[in-house]
């Protein structure tokens, strides 16, 4: 059901952005009141956050006004399934590294999940490609460029 105010329908997108910006402004102000020290003269650490919070509040008002004017043009429908696959892939990377699964396994899962988001169905094949890619990157970057990457069971064998 569309939101309405005084007989006009409200555009939900700018309305939401306006609410988010208001919350962000309040958050900045709340955090800044917790600062105790300030400079002897000139500008303390509180001035900029307050300035930015004022800007955020003004932009929130701008969005509220925009939500009153004619509804925005219809947007191309988005499919949220693929977005969830990519987000889930990254979340899996966090989880795998957290439990010490290592870099290569994490990259393998991320590769397969992203390929799935773009419509691939051959999950085993993609896991295989991800494994090879992760292995190649691990060897290239740890041996050649001396970067340190998280270790797991596979990395310990190498």
């Amino acid at each position, binding site marked *: 059901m569309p939101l309405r105010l005084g007989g006009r329908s409200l555009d939900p997108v700018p309305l939401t952005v306006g609410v988010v910006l208001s919350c962000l402004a309040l958050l900045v102000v709340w955090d800044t009141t917790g600062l105790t020290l300030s400079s002897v003269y000139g500008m303390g650490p509180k001035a900029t956050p307050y300035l930015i919070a004022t800007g955020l509040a003004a932009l929130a008002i701008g969005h509220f006004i925009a939500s009153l004017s004619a509804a925005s043009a219809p947007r191309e429908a988005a499919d949220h399934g693929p977005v969830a696959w*990519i987000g889930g892939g990254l*979340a899996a990377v*966090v989880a795998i590294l*957290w439990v010490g699964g290592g870099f290569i396994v994490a990259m393998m899962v*991320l590769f397969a999940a992203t390929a799935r988001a773009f419509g691939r169905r051959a999950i085993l094949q993609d896991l295989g490609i991800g494994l090879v890619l992760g292995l190649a990157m691990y060897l290239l970057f740890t041996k050649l460029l001396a970067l340190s990457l*998280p270790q797991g069971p596979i990395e310990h064998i190498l």
Partner: protein
Amino acid sequence: MDALASLGQGFLVALEPTKLLYALIGVFLGTAVGVLPGIGPAMTVALLLPVTFKLDPTGSLIMFAGIYYGGMYGGSTTAILINTPGESASMITALEGNRMARAGRGGPALATAAIGSFVAGCIATIALALFSPSLVELAVKFGPEDYFALMVLAFVTVSATFGDSPLRGLTSLFLGLVLGLIGIDTLTGQARLSFGVPELLDGVEVTTLAVGLFAVGEAMFVASRHRFGGDDIIPVRGSIWMTREDWRRSWKPWLRGTALGFPIGALPAGGAEIPTFLSYTIEKRLTKHPEEFGKGAIEGVAGPEAANNASAAGTLMPLLTLGLPTSATAAILLAGFQQYGLNPGPLLFAERPDLVWGLIASLFVANVMLVVLNLPLVGLWVRLLAIPQPWLYAGILVFAAMGTIAANPSPVELVMLLAFGALGFLMRRYDYPIAPVIVGLILGPLAEAQLRRALSISLGDPLILIQSPIAAGLLLLALIALIAPFALRGLSRFRGSED
């Protein structure tokens, strides 16, 4: 001629074998990402930042500049052959270029784009070398209040010119400014917006933000729209060389495009879109073959391509002399300098002339490499377009995650990458520009530092901001740039209701 002597010294640096290798890697990568739709030079440099911080700074920066220039060349190939601009500055090229390719004149279209880019890149780089020293002399006279005013001007122009509404652009900018607040305040040692999370005390990493917004957000956006599946690539038929007639019709648009691209790129108005669009409009008006426009006029490829490459050199001028990024790629390049503890500006010209002039000289080298690489090897680049999209984006995501893990292997950093990715997706979906967020994060803390320095010199008197004529002038310009879009829109609405 100080500039020429310095440039000569720069060539000694740029022509060292290792530097040539870096430049070659840069232009190769740059052309490849320029050709691939959806991956721009800004994202590529952002992806490479974490894996290059142990390499030689001069070499890495030469490589980054090569990527920037290469991206400009490669984008035109995709625009001409599949009508999908590889990066936003090539949108205009697609108009006439793709028509030429469909009419079997893809070769000359690619040639005029590449040679025009070469001509424009060389002239604009000479202009960069000639004008930079005088801008540096001017910049030395800048006080902190003038720098602050300059940054305010950059904030306004970057957010008001990107995207279709100043409200959205400013919203993006303020998101960046809020992210810039996070971390320890350098003057009093107090943590702002850190909420007791130790990883946040050092502030938000520019690379994490850029990779999240550009790589992860872009991948989510493309996936959400089911834009996968093949575009039809138009094969290049016949000779790739231009006829005498093509040369005669191309050289003036090249020069006019350069004349538009360099100054507009150098202004803090940002982006290559405006000069390419202006160049197209002008060529359409001046052409002796108006009937060909819209059906594949070579002038419509030559002018905008020259303008887009000249503006890339133009963007480097405020970046090198003032430390002022005016586009997303420039903002990432600034992050590249900062990762080696280098701050572009007058001091860098004095302290590291080898690096600055080596970088400028390497732009000539990159241009020569690009024109040689692009024309004969166009078939190779086109083959890149055959990589299946799922694997391409999966590879990008793996590389993005790898960069973040290598730079800072903490779960907090990866969660931030994911959060910025979601933010980037929402911003793309609802048409909020991304570049101002990055400019806000990089320039916000710098602007605050300059403002506080200015106010502590003036013992807290804010009038210092308008007592310096430079600062007052720049702030006035910023105010005009801020109000103009709203005022113009108001005017057009007024006119509309009158009719």
